[in-house]
């Protein structure tokens, strides 16, 4: 350290940049799929160029209408959702959303879902050719659709098969998003790693439900839904911790991140990057607050590079 900053501390800002399976991010903060739309919706509140990456709403081959309403119900420190992957389909995404996002200088990660292994392969193919996509996040863990989704995510063999199919059709970095609704997240992570995944996202939502004691019927139109928000953070941190110990892939950690401190908890557990989900609904500026808070933490704790913190709690 030759020079000192004007405020008397070691020169320069702490380094926040991370690399997730080949995707270079200026900081570790991205968005959880389905909670940030296609980016447009939050652009009035968030300078998208300040995000490490944007993970967009789950995309499927054909448009999907989604599930009946109500689709959302609040639970203690959490939210159950059963959106059901409503989306305009991959073609519409490529034609409408991608060109808009191309106007920003931020890696765009596309979250993809299918009913069959073949669906995933075709999505990977289409999106790789579209240009402007930095990586694919393979959602094998959505609890809100009848076919596919969680079925793939809870069976290590199927999860690996989907991973291989996607890898076979793309040269983009492939991030596989795991379901927490399994006996051993490590087994799934290991198989997915063997199948060639470049990174892992965890966790998707916990399968839950809520019943209205007035009507005596389930609250959600679709009966069950996915639990997200602060309530699930302890489960998410535990899974990142376990997978970090077992598998040598970079992890995007998520599940209940509201503050920079929450994000750092995930990084200490082993996440290379973190995604903000439900918290966006509470404060549309959360992502940027988390970026700034992480920087402040590093600064105050004399950590010059965020990468030093990854997995540091394993001691």
């Amino acid at each position, binding site marked *: 350290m030759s020079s000192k900053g004007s405020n008397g501390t070691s020169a320069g800002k702490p380094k926040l940049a991370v690399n997730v399976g080949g995707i270079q991010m200026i900081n570790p903060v991205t968005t959880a799929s389905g909670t940030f739309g296609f980016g447009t919706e939050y652009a009035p509140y968030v300078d998208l160029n300040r995000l490490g990456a944007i993970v967009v709403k789950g995309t499927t081959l054909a448009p999907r*209408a989604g599930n009946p309403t109500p689709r959302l119900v609040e639970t203690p420190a959490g*939210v159950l959702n059963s959106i059901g992957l409503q989306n305009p389909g991959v073609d519409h995404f490529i034609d409408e959303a991608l060109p808009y996002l191309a106007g920003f200088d931020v890696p765009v990660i596309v979250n993809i879902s299918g009913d069959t292994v073949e669906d995933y392969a075709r999505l990977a193919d289409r999106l790789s050719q579209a240009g402007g996509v930095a990586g694919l996040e393979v959602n094998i863990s959505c609890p809100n659709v009848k076919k596919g989704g969680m079925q793939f995510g809870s069976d290590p063999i199927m999860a690996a098969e989907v991973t291989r199919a996607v890898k076979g059709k793309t040269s983009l970095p492939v991030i596989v998003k795991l379901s927490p609704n399994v006996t051993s997240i490590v087994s799934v992570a290991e198989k997915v790693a063997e199948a060639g995944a470049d990174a892992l996202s965890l966790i998707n939502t916990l399968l839950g439900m809520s019943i209205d004691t007035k009507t005596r019927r389930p609250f959600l139109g679709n009966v069950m839904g996915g639990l997200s928000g602060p309530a699930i953070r302890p489960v998410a941190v535990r899974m990142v911790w376990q997978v970090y110990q077992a598998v040598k892939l970079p992890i995007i950690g998520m599940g209940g991140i509201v503050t920079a401190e929450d994000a750092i908890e995930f990084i200490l557990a082993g996440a290379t990057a973190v995604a903000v989900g439900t918290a966006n*609904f*509470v404060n549309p500026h959360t992502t940027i607050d988390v970026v700034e808070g992480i920087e402040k933490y590093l600064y105050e704790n004399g950590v010059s590079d965020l990468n030093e913190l990854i997995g540091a709690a394993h001691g």
Partner: protein
Amino acid sequence: MSLVIDAKVVQNKQIIPGHYRITLATPYCTEKARPGQFLHVRCGSTQDPLLRRPISIHAVDPQAGEVSLLYRVAGRGTALLAEYRVGDMVSIFGPLGRGFTLPKGDGKVCVVSGGIGIAPLYFLLQKLAGLGIFATVFQGVATAKQILIEDEIRELGHSVVVATDDGTKGFHGTVTSLFEDFLRGGGLVSKPGINEDGLVSCIFTCGPPAMMKRLSEIAAQQGAYCEVSLEERMGCGVGACLSCACKIKDGSGWFHYRRACVEGPVFPAGEVFWE
């Protein structure tokens, strides 16, 4: 653009049992808000309850730079909101959503509310009065004690007629029956000053879905333009989470989902796919 703001509580008062009016100092919203829009309100400061609550903008005082919300204590969030006191700060996000279309032409304007549905309609009535348009307001409530802000509406220059389910005041029956009665030129409301402008050209309504559905049918029969304010559970408030999906006609006899928070909450009644 809408903003997240910490607004100071100027007043927070129970006006009838279980219903409060909170007034917030927020020049920004005062300036931006249009009738039918809502604020996404954080009730409390902890992670339980977690989400904001959508509450319509009820009244705007441009001189004072204040916005009021009229809310019913429905559960945990609104119960916490009722505990805020003068001087406290409330985190609001807004104004959000698409509001009512202010009428331009001639003809009678009718405003029909059910219960707490009167909340957003008062702001509309403020604007209408400002444009020199005076409406007839049909307010339906369960019982006389639940009539809301009747005098305030009259002070703006509008007429008010009330329907109570239990007949404790005004028309004995639903507000839709009262409205039909009015259209037939009969009964309680056909007194001077109410039905004399002739044809109803425009209906604005907010209340229980069944009421709004019926009104949209009546409006169609009358050839009147009608707008309804729909309620759906909300997450983000900005169109990103797709939880506030409303069924809107897709032109082919079926529906597609539209987001109450950005494409609504106010929709032309004729576009709503009623069930």
